[in-house]
């Protein structure tokens, strides 16, 4: 085993350099741990499924111009008819919102209309009987809406639907010990009950922000077509036809009626774009943190290489003397590696405390989760390995110092 005591004694003669390397390791560990944790959290968000089959899906956000809210019903009907007949289209629906759209409508779902607090919030998608096939949502119990159940109503005149389809997550929240199928719930605070006629495996709410995390997979489908100025069309293309209908569908709609607008950046989007836009900041932050981590590790490694090289240069004569007195190359190499390990351990101990401290502070400031100790442990190992890797080159150079150096320039 290597002798640690002489190394510690020697380090005392290089207090400044030792402290600087330890400090750098500590700060790097603190930031890298937290950055990796943020990356993992963000990536976790953006890999959440929507519950839809996302390929071959086109979303068009439509806004009528100068049409009375009540008069849009026939226009939407005619749009839907035209879209469903368009070459390359598998199916299409008109809906108030869809997963990851951004804006939408949420309501509190209750067992009892008089209950003060709802059991859960849930997003409402007002759709027709083509919704499940267009979205590609999987019905796991009960049945789909029938076409005779669909009602057309102005948005401000919507009253709770008698039949609803809900997601499994919402069903589990409402009835933890069984299924909500066939049960009666209240989706508004009026006394109008809704019967759950079907349960879909999964559907996500329109929002991707953290505020909706508590009900991110609680969705209610209602057999209603809302008339009004705003609305979206979800269109499923036949395989390989997505690019074609992305061009033809908006043209068809404008030909059908030109008094409409598609918003500039959210008007006509493939679902791939919808997803990219919804998670843009999550992806961006993850990317930023990744770049910062990589640069930090590189800079810390460079700092270690620089300072150790300097020490090796300073101690060439001492190394020569040790070699002349019988130390092997291996001993010299071991000396520098151990020295770095000691500094590294001091650095990671401080760094781990700092990482936890920073995280605790961030928890209070930014509604973040607690740092998992796995990240600290992984960071500690990574930085110790980085230190050893960085010190290797100068240490090897030191080990090649010839014993003759001892005799030079004395």
């Amino acid at each position: 085993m290597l002798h640690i005591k002489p190394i510690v004694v020697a380090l005392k003669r290089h207090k400044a350099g030792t402290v600087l390397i330890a400090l750098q390791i500590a700060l790097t560990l603190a930031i890298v741990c937290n950055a990796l944790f943020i990356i993992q959290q963000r990536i976790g968000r953006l890999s959440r499924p929507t519950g839809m089959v996302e390929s071959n899906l086109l979303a068009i956000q439509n806004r009528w111009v100068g049409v009375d809210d009540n008069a849009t019903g026939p226009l939407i009907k005619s749009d839907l008819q035209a879209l469903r007949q368009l070459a390359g289209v598998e199916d299409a629906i008109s809906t108030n919102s869809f997963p990851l759209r951004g804006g939408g409508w949420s309501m509190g779902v209750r067992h009892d209309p008089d209950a003060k607090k709802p059991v859960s919030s849930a997003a409402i998608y007002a759709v027709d009987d083509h919704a499940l096939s267009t979205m590609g949502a999987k019905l796991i119990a009960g049945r789909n809406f029938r076409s005779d159940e669909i009602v057309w109503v102005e948005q401000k005149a919507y009253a709770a639907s008698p039949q609803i389809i809900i997601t499994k997550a919402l069903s589990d929240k409402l009835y933890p010990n069984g299924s909500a199928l066939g049960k009666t719930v209240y989706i508004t605070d009026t006394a109008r009950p809704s019967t759950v006629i079907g349960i879909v495996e999964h559907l996500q709410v329109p929002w991707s922000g953290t505020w909706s995390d508590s009900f991110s997979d609680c969705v209610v489908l209602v057999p209603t077509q809302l008339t009004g100025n705003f609305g979206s069309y979800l269109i499923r293309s036949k395989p390989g036809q997505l690019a074609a209908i992305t061009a033809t569908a908006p043209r068809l709609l404008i030909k059908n009626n030109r008094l409409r607008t598609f918003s500039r950046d959210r008007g006509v989007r493939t679902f791939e774009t919808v997803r990219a836009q919804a998670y843009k900041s999550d992806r961006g932050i993850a990317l930023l943190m990744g770049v910062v981590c990589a640069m930090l590790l590189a800079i810390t490694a460079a700092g270690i290489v620089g300072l150790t090289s300097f020490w090796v240069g300073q101690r060439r004569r001492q190394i020569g003397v040790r070699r002349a007195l019988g130390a092997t190359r291996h001993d010299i190499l071991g000396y520098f590696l151990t020295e770095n390990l000691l500094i590294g351990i001091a650095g990671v101990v401080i760094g781990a405390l700092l990482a936890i401290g920073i995280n605790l502070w961030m928890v209070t400031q930014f509604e973040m989760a607690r740092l998992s100790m796995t990240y600290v442990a992984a960071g500690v190992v990574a930085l110790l390995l980085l230190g050893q890797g960085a010190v290797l080159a100068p240490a090897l150079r030191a080990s090649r110092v010839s014993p003759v150096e001892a005799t030079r320039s004395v």
Partner: protein
Amino acid sequence: MFAYYLQLGLRSLQRNPVLTALMVMAIGFGVAASMTTYSVFLATSSNPIPQKSSQLYAVQVDNWGPEDSDKGEPPDSLNYTDAMALMAAHRAPRQTALYPVGVSVVPDDQSQLPSPESTYATYGDAFAMFDVPFLHGSGWGAAEDDAHAAVAVISRVLNDKLFRGANSVGRQINLDGRNYRITGVMDSWDPQPLFFDAVNTSGFSDPVQIFIPFTRAVELKMATAGNNNCNRDPGLGWDAWLHSECIWIQYWAELPDRAQAVAYRQYLHGYAAEQQRAGRFRWAPNVRLSNVEQWMDHLKVVPPEAKISLLVALGFLLICLVNTVGLLLAKFMRRAPEIGVRRALGASRKTVYAQFLIEAATVGLAGGALGLLLTGVGVLCVGLVFDPQIARLATLDLSLIALTLLVAVLSTVLAAFYPTWRAAQVQPAWQLKSN
């Protein structure tokens, strides 16, 4: 002497190109990361209307009660009933209720498609309150508000597009199939954060293109294009909704001095108390009056991403500096014999200080130049992390360029203090002897 030390510094940097490159890169990356994130932070936390931010107040009246409100805070928006009561009372010198409406300009040319434009429904006071600059004409007045008149104020951009830049005051613009008479054309006006409607825009949006009278918009039953929040089912139809407790209106009052602000707060309190007596509010008056900066704080318009990335970048810069201290120490101490000779030949500690700090400053300058380049790249990449409405605000302007260089040089010189002090401590006799 300065020029000579600069020359020496440059020569010394050339002697250890790898070490120099390491330092320059550390400083460059650290400064660039900090400056890029700082530009976003600065853009999102700036005061959108500095000359009047202490005179404009956002009004909150708790019409939901403690049960439905968030930690005792009144809702961020007003319902129609309260907004209209405050407008009618007219207790501030100027005031406006406002909300965003989804409106499209319908071109005369039948072959052209309508285009959606960012539009707000306000009262005529809004233009004077928000210091809206006019290129032609002006806003509308109280008479038009009272008459629910079909008038509009349009932006310069829209005027250029529709009227090829000609003075369009008095001409008609077709919004959603209805004609409005243009009373004024705004000059370029783009306050960011969009303080008067930070609730619906989260603070940032593209510039407003059209204003129309609030009274007109309500008469035409234009629903809000922003958020509408209800604590109870509003009932069926437009009128039920209008008279419900659903909140969707922003309300601003201009109160030029403290006394008027105090008086207005008292008035609000009195109004809420009256509503309580009438049985509409079943809770004690809970009202807020926040000036622009307080309102921006309350709504947290600075995105958490901007804060987190600025903090991470500053931590990054700190590490880069610690790294630079270490590398400079190595570099300077390697030249201990040289320092010994200089000192022995009569150089004072002070001149050693000067020489090494100047050498460090040259490293800082080089790092700053690299940092500037990287900041430019960084600002271009802001769009990867932030929404386009925020990304467009982050720009590499002259003050940011100056700040980047300044931060680079200052922080490097700061980092150089300790290594320089060590260099100045070199004992000439000991150095000469040991060589």
